[in-house]
């Protein structure tokens, strides 16, 4: 279970302070599929980054399975990101010097898994997202939709309970976006918690629950 408690994030841009999040209290149950929608600048991505342990709150706390992530060291946070969370970005964020197999195997490399195990699992995961015949391709040789599927395979590599997607269909065409949503739905059926930020109402409609954000607050 994920729970935020009075979560607040303030960015300082020179002299100006920007309140990106104001006292957000949110509970996400295990195996839930939740979509967070809202206009740009409403704080959706900030919330995702805090839940995904990519950033630290100004005040308040994020609990993941009862662990107060604010009390963890840098290395502790890296471990949570590696073991419990799989991240999918709007820009895919694949390593362009590595091929599909190596990109997918990278988080397992950081987890210290054996080379053979990694390669075997990476191949399985790529097959699962429909890229079984693209394992030696570099990201630049694939379409946007295919790159995002590669990113999903990478997010799954350490078998995380939580998948976080920041506008995962924002940079790909509608058809490919539907495929991505199908995959995410499938992952949710496997029992994983899916948290997706989007401003596409059609996609939000496929989630089990939708939360709307505005001006750094989660509306009821």
């Amino acid at each position, binding site marked *: 279970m994920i729970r935020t408690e009075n979560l607040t994030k303030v960015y300082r841009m020179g002299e100006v302070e920007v309140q990106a999040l104001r006292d957000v209290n949110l509970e996400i149950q295990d195996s839930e599929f939740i979509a967070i929608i809202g206009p740009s600048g409403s704080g959706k991505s900030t919330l995702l980054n805090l839940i*995904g342990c*990519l950033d630290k709150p100004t005040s308040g706390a994020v609990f993941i399975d009862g662990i107060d992530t604010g009390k963890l060291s840098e290395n502790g946070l890296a471990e949570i*990101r*590696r073991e419990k969370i799989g991240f999918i970005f709007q820009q895919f964020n694949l390593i362009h010097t590595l091929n599909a197999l190596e990109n997918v195997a990278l988080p397992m490399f950081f987890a210290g898994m054996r080379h053979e195990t990694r390669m075997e699992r990476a191949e399985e995961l790529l097959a699962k997202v429909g890229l079984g015949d693209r394992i030696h391709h570099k990201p630049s040789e694939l379409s946007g939709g295919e790159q995002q599927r590669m990113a999903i395979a990478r997010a799954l590599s350490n078998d995380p309970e939580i998948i976080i997607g920041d506008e995962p269909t924002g940079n790909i065409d509608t058809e490919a976006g539907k495929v991505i949503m199908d995959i995410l739905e499938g992952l949710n059926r496997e029992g994983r918690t899916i948290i997706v930020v989007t401003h596409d109402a059609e996609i939000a409609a496929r989630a089990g629950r939708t939360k709307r954000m505005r001006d750094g607050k989660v509306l009821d």
Partner: protein
Amino acid sequence: MRDKFLLAFRSIRARRTRSILTVLGIAVGIAAIVSLMSVGYGMEEAITGELTGMADIISVMPGKIMGATYVEMGGFTDRDVKDLQRIGGIKDISAMTYDAVEVEYRNERKPTFVLGGDTKELESFYVEPVGLKEGRWLRENDYKGCVIGDRVANDFFDEVIHVNDKLVINGEKFIVIGAFEKGDMLYANDVDRNIFLTLRAAKEVLQTEEIKHIIVRVYDIDEAEEIAEEIEETINDNHGLDDFATAMTMGSMLEQIGDIFNIIRGVLVGIAAIALIVASIGIMNTMLMSVMERTHEIGVMKAIGAKSRDVLSLFLLESSMVSLVGGVAGCLLGWGVAKGLSFIGSTASGLEIAAIVKPGVLLGGIAVALIVGVLSGFYPARKASKMSPVEAVRYG
């Protein structure tokens, strides 16, 4: 570990041009150091080697060295030479005489020098290192023959002098039986402008019994200093003066030359140090650029679970691989440059200089490349590894 190498190798290869430039920057710096030091060692060895070949020689002159100038006090006599033969440890003694003379060739008259001595001794001193261009060397019974230096043959007179031409020296006729090659740096003064005669002929031409130079060979080099002192005493006694004779061993000459080499080596190391500093700044710059431009990649790695330590070690591995290749390339390049420089140097100076590439210098070069590369990779890599993943991912 194998995968770490593979990852580092991939990212080096992916940025091929920049990696090659970095390797080149390191290689040039290291090559500068390796080649300068090797040429320095080679020069030192060339000159001291030539002199240590003559380490058993004591050179005795009738005069004293005051500062940088030599003041001649007169000449040695046959008695001096006989007395020296009684000193123990001496293998052989060779007496020479020389002086300015007037030479006539085809009605042209020019001043130059005559040098006479034991023909065997002169042969080992001058003919062996310099070589003859024409004719043959003097024998003891070549009473009317002479061998001439290169400038005497080619420059002094309107017409070039060849073997079998006739010269008139201080009114006496001689036949040219040989001519020297041009002498290099060490021999130019001694050989090029001289006319060589047998001792007997020289004494007659110069109308003197005085000996201007005695060369003594000893059996044991370690005794040379001691024997040199004894020689000075013996001759000083004969002439009733305190400092009539100066006997110099090759050892003491080598010491003087050693001082000069310390200065030369200091200058070479100084130049190499500047080259290294320039190379280091270049390396740091490329490493910094390399890490900066990959901030985004670092952010992604951290977002998918890499620890700061993972990122740091990847980047350090990468910079040490680049540095190692640069160091090895630099050593090879430096080796080639040293050989090239010594070839050019030998041709220009006429002195045989073979660059000496010491294994220690090569290992040192590689070590320096690694240290500079890793240190200059460390700062940006550490900076990158400390970035918040959100900031880093947003970058670029």
